């Protein structure tokens, strides 16, 4: 009778409280956590994706003109490269609080910080790509009557695209990883789940957030690789 009673209580408890993420079992891998909290996970992933994409796009919008200026005016090159590299030495946990002074505790703070970090890689790769365009090609284009703007848009950028895209992939993947630190100002996407998980010793949440974060980085990398494949058909024609 007593045995039956205990078994009955255990079954009831299991039905109410999914055992693998209760405080007592606290498993790392817990399918019912993923099911029960799927809306939390989706929201955090969406915020993470939004922060990453906007940051990298902002970084790209700033980096392209910076690289073009560095290419045109040799005197500014060292300064521009130095500046974009110096930004990168500031630890992210320090950069976000400093930006809070200007933009408050908002998503903008995190986005500006991440965009600044992406500059290091984006400016350098764009410049490398532009510099790698052979002089012969440039001279031929000039001979055909291309002005400097048309030369840049029609000849130099397309030829530099593989190197620029390589930089974009690196910048995107590292921005996904870095977005987690945005949790310090409450806009860290999956990083907020990590912070919550560490504060509450909640292993299923920590594991889920970590896995989703790495999966997001991997997915975006593959998508950018596919985009590069679509944008540079001439590189395939040569290989075939």
């Amino acid at each position, binding site marked *: 009778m007593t045995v039956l009673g205990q078994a009955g209580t255990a079954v009831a408890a299991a039905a109410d409280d999914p055992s693998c993420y209760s405080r007592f079992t606290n498993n790392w891998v817990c399918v019912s956590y993923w099911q029960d909290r799927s809306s939390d996970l989706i929201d955090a992933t969406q915020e993470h994706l939004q922060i990453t994409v906007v940051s990298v796009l902002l970084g790209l919008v700033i980096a392209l003109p910076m690289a073009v200026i560095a290419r045109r005016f040799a005197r500014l090159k060292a300064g521009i490269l130095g500046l974009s590299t110096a930004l990168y030495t500031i*630890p992210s946990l320090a950069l976000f609080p400093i930006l809070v002074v200007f933009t408050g505790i908002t998503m903008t703070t995190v986005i500006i910080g991440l965009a600044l970090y992406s500059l290091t890689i984006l400016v350098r790769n764009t410049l490398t790509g532009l510099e790698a365009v052979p002089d012969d090609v440039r001279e031929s284009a000039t001979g055909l009557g291309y002005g400097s703007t048309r030369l840049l848009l029609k000849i130099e950028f397309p030829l530099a695209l593989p190197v620029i895209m390589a930089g974009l992939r690196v910048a995107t993947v590292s921005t996904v990883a870095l977005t987690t630190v945005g*949790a310090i100002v409450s806009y860290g996407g999956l990083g907020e789940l990590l912070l919550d998980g560490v504060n509450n010793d909640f292993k299923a949440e920590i594991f889920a957030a970590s896995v989703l974060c790495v999966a997001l980085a991997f997915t975006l990398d593959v998508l950018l690789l596919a985009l590069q494949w679509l944008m540079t058909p001439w590189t395939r024609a040569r290989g075939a």
Partner: protein
Amino acid sequence: MLGDAWNYLTQWSNWTGSDGMLELLYQQLLLTLTALAITVVFALPIALYLGHVGRGGFLAINISNIGRAIPTFAVLVLLSVGFVGTDTLGPYGRAGLATLIALVLFALPPVVTNGYVAVREVDKDIVEASTGMGMTGWQVFWRVELPLAMPVIMAGVRLALVQVWATATIAALVAGPGLGNVITSGFYNSNLGKGLAGAFVVAAVAFVLEMLSIGAERLVTPVHQRRSGRTEAPRKTVSAAV
């Protein structure tokens, strides 16, 4: 807010004591240097050897690509909540071991990739000439490859130093050691001035470390290499910020 930060920084009592900023600064420097030393002593020789014999390049290069995709914060959380725990480790503080392991993991990619690439990319003609002169494999490595590879190796170590310092700051997010605690406690207690003060100190030390390591890099780089291509080569492998 800037005024609050200034007040926090100029009040001497915030610097002294067992949880003052000087103690935390010392703790974080100790963590950073220990992790870097472990990486340089154990991993760098392997990377240099692989570069010398020209094997394992796929691994040596890809370790950097994988390292970029893995969030430092997640690794720290996984280590401290799970496998390693948050016990205090001597002068390294709470969650000292978890932090040290995470720091070594994040120092590995720049050190290993740059070490491998540096030795691998030494001009093959020079290596052949040295062998032709009758140098043994060890002599070629020690007298020819290593000196020529030094700038790129040092660039990797320098990158690792700054990165490890930055990672050590994040340890505070898992209630670990280091100056990041000033930042997190400022934010958690709505004392933004304090958070900002901590951020300034962390950023200033990062800058000083970068400057010191540029100086050290100059010291170990042979004079004749300083002008030609020195500024280009070290930038081959830029790793992720943390």
